[in-house]
């Protein structure tokens, strides 16, 4: 589903990722980890064409990232749901509209949008906050809105960047359970985190980054 082969990314003469190769299969729930600044966010960006690799090839859900044109990038992104580290919620739109945005760009029928958004808000237990604005929500709630937005379009791949970054362990568990459920429904999930407790004893696949390359992979 996601395949990196000898991928390198350089920012301003600074090698952020070097010769990265790995494969994540359809239906996997995997983790990318490593110290802060090692390139986890960059690795996710490469997957949704938020950054372009300097070397190597990346294939995501059948799309070859290097061959994408500006024009076709939107269509890749519709298959890749992203839970951004900085959320990227629009503060002038309420929870419902923030989530609905991911469907409106698909030119979907308003009634379908309403049904799907309400269903996904129920999944993340936020149906009662549908009309609230993001800045009136707690960190954990905001995180769930972002997850709802990422999953509402039923993407093939879901990426999450430090999804438990600012959350206590109770909230972290809620979030992790959500990802497991999304994964159980068939979506391939890749989570970037520096929090080892998320994957310890999970038996899931983990990609360790160190000094811009893959140090080791732990498989189940």
């Amino acid at each position: 589903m996601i395949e990196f082969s000898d991928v390198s990314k350089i920012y301003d003469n600074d090698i952020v990722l070097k010769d990265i190769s790995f494969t994540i299969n359809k239906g996997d729930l995997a983790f990318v980890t490593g110290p802060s600044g090692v390139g986890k966010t960059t690795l996710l960006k490469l997957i949704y064409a938020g950054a372009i690799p300097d070397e190597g090839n990346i294939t995501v859900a059948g799309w070859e990232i290097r061959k994408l044109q500006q024009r076709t990038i939107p269509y890749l992104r519709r298959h890749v749901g992203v839970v951004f580290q900085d959320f990227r919620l629009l503060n002038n739109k309420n929870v419902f509209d923030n989530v609905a945005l991911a469907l409106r760009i698909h030119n979907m029928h308003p009634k379908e949008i309403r049904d799907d958004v309400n269903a996904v808000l129920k999944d993340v237990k936020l149906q009662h906050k549908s009309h609230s604005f993001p800045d009136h929500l707690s960190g954990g709630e905001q995180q769930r809105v972002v997850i709802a937005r990422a999953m509402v379009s039923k993407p093939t791949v879901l990426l999450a960047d430090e999804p438990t970054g600012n959350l206590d362990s109770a909230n972290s568990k809620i979030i992790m359970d959500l990802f497991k459920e999304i994964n159980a429904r068939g979506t391939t999930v890749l989570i970037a985190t520096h929090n080892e407790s998320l994957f310890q004893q999970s038996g899931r696949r983990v990609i360790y980054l160190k000094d811009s390359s893959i140090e080791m992979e732990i498989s189940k």
Partner: protein
Amino acid sequence: MRVLLYSIQSALKNIWAEKWINLLTTLSVGIGLLILSAFITVSLNMDSVLKKWSRSFGIVVYLDDQISAEATGTVRDLFKQDADIMEVNYISEDEALSELRDILGADASILDDLEQNPLPSSFELKLKSSLLEPVFVKKKAETIVKMPGVADVQYGEKWLASLNTVSRIMKASTIFLGGAIFIAIIFITYNTIKIFFYRRKEEIETLKLLGATKSFIRLPFLLEGLVLGVIGGIIGSLTLYGIHSLIVAKSIDFMPSVRAIIISIPDEIFLSVPFVGAFMSFIGSFIAVGKIRY
């Protein structure tokens, strides 16, 4: 289609969210269009006045003193065949004399002493109004004066020249002013839309990351420009209407004669101003939107 509906919704929301900038923009657009439409109105009216005047413009062709009726007929036929000439009026010696009598009025008695009519017979020609151009008329007069049986040709040369200058100045300034306002309105909307762009940079970036296409992102901005132009146009149109009604109402009391000149504003102007505004603003936002890096 649904994208269009959503874009319209989103454009209207955004317009409301930025109401102060938009108020300023629509007022500027409105004032620009008001000036333009007022000027066009004035110049249209001037033009119709000039046309009215030029309709009275005639070339007088004096015939030789002893010209035969046959020769007069030949000259008349030549004039009638000339496509440039709209109207041919023959004024016989006697008619000329009686006209002169009318002009002299009480003093007409001095004419009684004349043994014979000293006035020549003449043709009064009206040229097509589109041909009332000094150089052309002059050439025409020179050709006519060479015709057999023609003694002299007279026309208001200076008058025609100044009429022409006035109308040319009107036309040139309408085009100039129109162009200037056109550019100004485009520039105003361009700037406004660009400001919106920068303000919504985050939102645009998010939309892109969610997989929105270029057109989905651009459409609301284009529509915003369009709506601003229409509203500006309506403001301009209504203001023009108001000012016009006021002047008409006042001029009935004070100067009825002015009324005849300023009264007519074609309905087309009121109706077309919003469209013109929309068109200009659309161009402005189109240019602004084209600058989006994507």
